């Protein structure tokens, strides 16, 4: 698998980092605290693309193709590549299609990747809450779309795994076990839903990767990851897997008590990019959430990618033109005090 290429350093120092370094130096000088290594990281740069899409019936394939091209993804880069799309399928409930990535966004992505030269596209997911993956596949409406399009679906919860050393070292996990299928693809694409989350504040492209960890090793609902720490696990999975591209379905997202019990929220956007922290930080700003107040994003900053607004080159729509506050719930600790000022 290739690694993401859009998270290099620019070699310079931002005002924010200079202030951090000065503060850190003062603290070290007084010998009072050990300063986290992240305060000494060099700033990184990334690009994201935001598209306005008001309804699922619009030309999503066209929008995604344009967005990928704007981000520098060429036919040459994708020629002959095997693409795995990983949606967010958690569980289904009557009247709550906003829990899961919409099937028509998957269809649009399939078409876009094929247009840009990919050899094959498949869809794979290991739902956290349901043992019956096929039931979520069917009831979410995805089965209808993929059957019609002749696209294969894989249940990641039951695929024999391969181990990689934990490159993130944020949890006590020495290794991470990923589905063997990942050794047969070139690109892993996270296709998250834009949602608030009651344990992490927001769930976007990085948190969506919980679903790649096979239930047969991690349990339902991914018990091992919850036990060692959700935020730390998000960082370890992303640091170790090094996924390739992120597309977030924010056409209708979820606000309030996400990721399951929240209300639908029309944001009317698709957000994409090669760098996951940058994509997620952009989504947070669109949702009216300060990414620096979302613990795993703040810790990913300038390590897995930049989250600072000035470090992210914004293509397509401006954040201001699509920004809409997602409801946050006071009684939920992870959502307290994270509103963008």
């Amino acid at each position: 698998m290739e690694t993401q290429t859009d998270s290099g350093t620019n070699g310079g120092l931002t005002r924010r980092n200079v202030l951090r370094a000065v503060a850190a130096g003062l603290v070290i000088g007084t010998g009072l605290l050990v300063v986290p290594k992240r305060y000494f990281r060099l700033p990184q740069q990334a690009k994201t693309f935001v598209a306005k899409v008001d309804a699922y019936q619009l030309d999503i394939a066209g929008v995604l193709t344009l967005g990928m091209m704007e981000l520098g993804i060429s036919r040459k880069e994708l020629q002959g590549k095997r693409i795995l799309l990983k949606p967010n399928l958690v569980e289904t409930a009557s009247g709550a299609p906003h829990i899961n990535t919409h099937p028509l966004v998957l269809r649009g992505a399939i078409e876009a990747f094929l247009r840009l030269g990919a050899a094959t596209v498949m869809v794979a997911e290991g739902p956290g809450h349901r043992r019956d993956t096929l039931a979520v596949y069917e009831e979410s409406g995805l089965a209808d779309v993929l059957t019609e399009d002749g696209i294969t679906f894989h249940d990641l919860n039951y695929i024999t795994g391969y181990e990689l050393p934990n490159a993130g070292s944020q949890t006590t996990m020495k290794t991470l076990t990923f589905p063997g299928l990942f050794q047969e693809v070139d690109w892993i694409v996270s296709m998250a839903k834009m949602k608030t989350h009651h344990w992490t504040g927001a769930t976007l492209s990085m948190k969506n990767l919980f679903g790649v960890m096979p239930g047969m090793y991690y349990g339902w609902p991914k018990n091992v990851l919850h036990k060692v720490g959700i935020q730390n696990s998000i960082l370890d999975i992303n640091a170790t897997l090094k996924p390739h591209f992120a597309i977030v379905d924010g056409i209708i997202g979820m606000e309030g008590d996400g990721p399951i019990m929240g209300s639908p929220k029309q944001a009317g956007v698709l957000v994409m990019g090669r760098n996951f922290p940058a994509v997620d930080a952009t989504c947070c700003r669109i949702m009216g959430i300060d990414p620096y107040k979302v613990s795993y994003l703040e810790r990913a900053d300038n390590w897995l990618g930049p989250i600072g607004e000035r470090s992210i080159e914004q293509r397509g729509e401006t954040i201001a033109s699509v920004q809409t506050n997602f409801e946050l719930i006071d009684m939920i600790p992870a959502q307290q005090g994270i509103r963008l000022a």
Partner: protein
Amino acid sequence: MEARVGSSSLRTLGSAALLRRALPSGEFSGRPGGQFQVDSTAWGILALTACGGSAELLDQSRHLLMREQLPDGRLCVKKPHPASYWPTSLAILAWQDSQSCSEAQQRSVRFLLNTTGFHFPRQSDAPSAHDSLLKGWPWVDETHSWVEPTAMSVMALRATGHGRHDRVQEAVRMLLDRQLPHGGWNYGNTLVFGKELHPMPENTGAALAGLSGSVDRDVVLPSLQYLHSEVARLQTPISLGWSLLGLAAWQMAPPNAATLVERCLANQKRYGEYETSALCLLVLGALAMEMGGQIPLLSASVYKGLPLALTQ
């Protein structure tokens, strides 16, 4: 497949489909042409036994399963992953009525009785509503107890004569504590931040199967009603199989069970061939319809001498 619930054709067709996943040495793969899997082998033994499969093959499969047992009695999804010990209860069930496997079975029973997951006192401001001290069994070592592994372990211990053991009694209380206020179970959370979560058919079926014979019908009535109202729409083998097993354990059956099973089998054209454990669950669920309150996960000897009321 022209399967009819209660007909010998289901047994024949079920056997044929399962035998295609049997490897030459007797173990089962997850899919036709696939590699050996512990859980698939245990489910294969249970389903083939219910279908009246060859005693010789079953004996061979049970012995191969014994080779996967670790010294402390656990069986894991893969030997390099000893923490994923959830197939242990399945193996105990697969070894029922096999004299030559009884020692291995007892080792696994001891493992379950001596193993708990991660439990902790519930704080007054905890976001989750359930009693986090009540012990059942986890999917994976050192994690919390959840519904399906607990229901499976209760059935396994009951099948080996430990139904009155303190651990089983506590696990029954744990399952009841995780029942949703409006009926049904999900993976094991009830209310989070004050909101009641959604029930799921497969977990509800497993919990009902695990609780049958241990609690009064009134206690689980809302869950029976939920499952009975859901079953007609189910299209997939894990949900439908567990639902039929759970309802059968309480002497309930949807009127069109045969049609549901046929539709589910036919859906393999849409989804591809089912994974072995899913196919086994469907076969077992279909066969449960004709067993009058007994479920084919447990050998007939478990029910011997029990008054009918205990199976209702």
